[in-house]
C-alpha cells in the first residue's frame, strides 16, 4: 500500500512539472522616446527551474511596415554579442543581469528609423518552451501629452475651487455666529456683574469689570473694523 503510494507520488511529481515547464517572458508593451535620447528595453523571464549557466537572451528587431526581422543582440555562454553590421551598429549595450534573469539592452541615440517592434526571447535550459515577448518602440520629436491629463486637471481644479469656496463660506458664517454669540454673552455677563456690584457696594475690586469692559470695547472696535 505504502509502496504504491510512493510510486504514484514519484510518477506524479515526474509528470506534472513537465507540463508546467514553460518559460514566461516579460517585456513592456509600448515605449515612447524622444529623438536623440537613449532607451532601456527591459526583458525578464519567469521559470520554474533555477537559472542555469547556459541561459540565453536574444533580441530581434522588425521595422514598422516590414515583415523581416533581424537579430540585434544575443547573450550566450556568459558573453554578450551586439549588432556590428546592421542599423544598430555601435548603439546597443547590454545592461542586464543574467544571474537575476534580466536581459535588458540599452539603445543609444534614437532616430525616426528606429520605430518598430523589438522581440526578446529567453531560454533557460532545460526550460526552453516559451513564447517570445515584443515591445513596440515609438520615437517622437516632441513627447505628446497623454490623453486625459489636462482634462482631468482642469476639472479637478474647478471642482476643487468650488468646494473651497463652499467651505470658506460656511466657515465664515460659523465664525461670525460664534463671535456674535460671545459678544452677547460678555454683554450679558457685564450687566449681571454691574447689577451685583451696585447691590454689594464698592467692596469687590473693580479690576475684573474693568478688564471685561476693555475686552468688550476691543471686540466692538474689531467688529467695526470688519464692517469697514
Amino acid at each position, binding site marked *: 500500500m505504502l509502496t504504491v503510494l510512493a510510486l504514484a507520488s514519484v510518477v506524479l511529481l515526474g509528470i506534472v512539472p513537465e507540463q508546467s515547464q514553460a518559460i514566461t517572458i516579460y517585456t513592456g508593451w509600448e515605449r515612447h522616446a524622444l529623438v536623440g535620447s537613449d532607451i532601456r528595453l527591459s526583458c525578464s523571464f519567469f521559470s520554474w527551474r533555477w537559472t542555469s549557466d547556459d541561459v540565453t537572451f536574444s533580441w530581434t528587431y522588425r521595422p514598422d511596415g516590414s515583415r523581416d526581422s533581424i537579430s540585434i543582440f544575443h547573450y550566450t555562454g556568459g558573453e554578450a554579442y551586439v549588432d556590428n553590421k546592421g542599423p544598430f551598429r555601435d548603439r546597443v549595450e547590454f545592461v542586464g543581469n543574467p544571474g537575476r534573469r534580466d536581459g535588458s539592452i540599452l539603445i543609444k541615440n534614437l532616430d525616426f528609423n528606429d520605430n518598430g517592434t523589438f522581440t526578446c526571447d529567453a531560454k533557460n535550459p532545460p526550460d526552453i518552451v516559451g513564447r517570445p515577448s515584443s515591445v513596440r518602440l515609438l520615437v517622437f520629436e516632441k513627447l*505628446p*501629452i*497623454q*490623453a*486625459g*491629463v*489636462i*482634462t*482631468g*486637471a*482642469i*476639472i479637478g481644479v*474647478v*471642482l476643487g475651487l468650488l468646494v473651497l469656496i463652499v467651505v470658506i463660506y460656511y466657515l465664515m458664517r460659523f465664525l461670525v455666529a460664534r463671535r456674535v454669540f460671545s459678544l452677547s454673552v460678555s454683554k450679558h455677563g457685564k450687566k449681571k456683574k454691574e447689577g451685583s456690584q451696585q447691590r454689594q457696594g464698592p467692596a469687590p475690586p473693580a479690576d475684573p469689570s474693568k478688564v471685561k469692559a476693555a475686552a468688550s470695547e476691543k471686540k466692538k472696535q474689531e467688529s467695526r473694523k470688519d464692517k469697514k
Partner: protein
Amino acid sequence: MLLLLLGIILLHIAALVLLFVSTIVSVWTSGETSTSDLWKNCTIHTGGHACSPASTGEWIQAVQALMILSIIFSCLSLFLFFCQLFTLQKGGRFFLTGAFQILASLFVMSGAIIYTVMSPEWVPEKNTFGYSYILAWVACPLALISGLIYVILRKRE
C-alpha cells in the same frame, strides 16, 4: 403657477439634454467619410467603421474638460433648484441656481469658442462642423436664458 414651474424645469432639462448629446456623441467635425472629435475619429469604409482615439493635444483636452464641467454645473443647478424650492423663504430669489446655470452656459461658450479657433490646426479644410458642435452652440443661449430666469424669479406660494 404650476405651469410656470413646469416650463422652467422643461427648459432646464432641454438645455441639459443638449449638453449631454453634444458632449457624448463624437461628431464635432464631419467630412464625406469621416467624423471626428471630441473623443474619437471614425472613418467609414467598405468594411464598416474604423475608429481611433482623437488627438491628445492640449486644446482638445481643454474643450473636453469645459464640456464636462458645463454638464456638472448644469446638473448641480437642477439639484439646487429643487433644494431651494423647498427651503427658500417667500419672496426670495434663486440666486445660487441661476449662478450655476449661467456658469454652465459660460463653460459651453468658451469650449465652443476654443474649438472654433483651434480646429483649423487639426482638421483638413474640406470638413465641415458636425451636429454636436451646432448643439453646443444652441445649448449655450438656452442655458443662459434659463439661468437669467432663475435669477429674476421670485418664490411664491
